[in-house]
């Protein structure tokens, strides 16, 4: 009884490969280590470029330069961080193997 239930539920977890591949690509999942790295990179990048754009803008006495630098650095950050690059998927979650067959049947 329990094994039949297991097989019944497994048929729902198996998805159509084509649409699931596109959906996974658009969803852009990255693993947990990748998420941590992305978080650090985004924070450090934006903090340092904000400080840099203030200092250089003050030195050049140009507000336009400050905001241009911040905007350009944001665009580069988006390219680095937003897509799900493979380097963020190097540590996939290690799932434990399925527990052995039923004890009853």
């Amino acid at each position, binding site marked *: 009884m329990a094994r039949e239930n297991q097989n019944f539920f497994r048929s729902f977890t198996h998805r159509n490969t084509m649409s699931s591949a596109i959906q996974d690509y658009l*969803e852009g*999942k990255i693993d947990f280590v990748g998420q941590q790295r992305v978080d650090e990179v985004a924070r450090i990048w*934006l903090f340092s470029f904000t400080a840099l754009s203030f200092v250089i*803008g003050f030195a050049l006495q140009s*507000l336009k330069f400050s905001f241009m630098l*911040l905007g350009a650095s944001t665009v580069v950050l988006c390219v680095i961080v*937003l897509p799900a690059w493979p380097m963020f998927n190097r540590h996939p979650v290690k799932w434990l193997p399925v527990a052995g067959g039923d004890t009853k049947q």
Partner: protein
Amino acid sequence: MHSFFTRINNVSALLSSCTMALLAAITIASLLQEAIYPPQINGQISMKPVKVFHAKTPRQRRKQEMGFLNFNMTADLTPLFTWNTKQLFLSLEAEYENIQGVNNTIVLWDRIVRRPEDARVKIIGAKNKYAFKEIGGKGFGKGAPGNASYALKYNLMPYVGMLRYGEAARLSDVPFDVREEL
């Protein structure tokens, strides 16, 4: 950060915070710059006695006292232009006391300066842009104290921060030359 959209969300939130911090830093830097190096502006105004006639513009019903200026003005306002200056609003204002003893201030000429290259003001033989008349009637003609002070005031509008006001030049005790009717 697990999906594309949450990454967009987080990065845009971080960017907003960083932009606000940058604007706050610019404001504080401007405040400190003004406190440590206050700009010294020395300007000059010179004027002939102001002619006062009884006249009226075509849309008025009654004749009224109107003053006519002829002034020279020089001022160098380049110290006011920092990286945080958007524009300067200059105005020439007359301060006088009318017959009832009330102090009035009226703007007679103004100019908007957007670039430091235009910040050197040199005017010779200019007239007032706006009509010099007291709205309530008798102001500076016969019977009034016959002197007025003229001041060139500036309003500095920054990109980020508080508006700043100041005075660039002052000329006191210019007499009114009341003429008979035109």
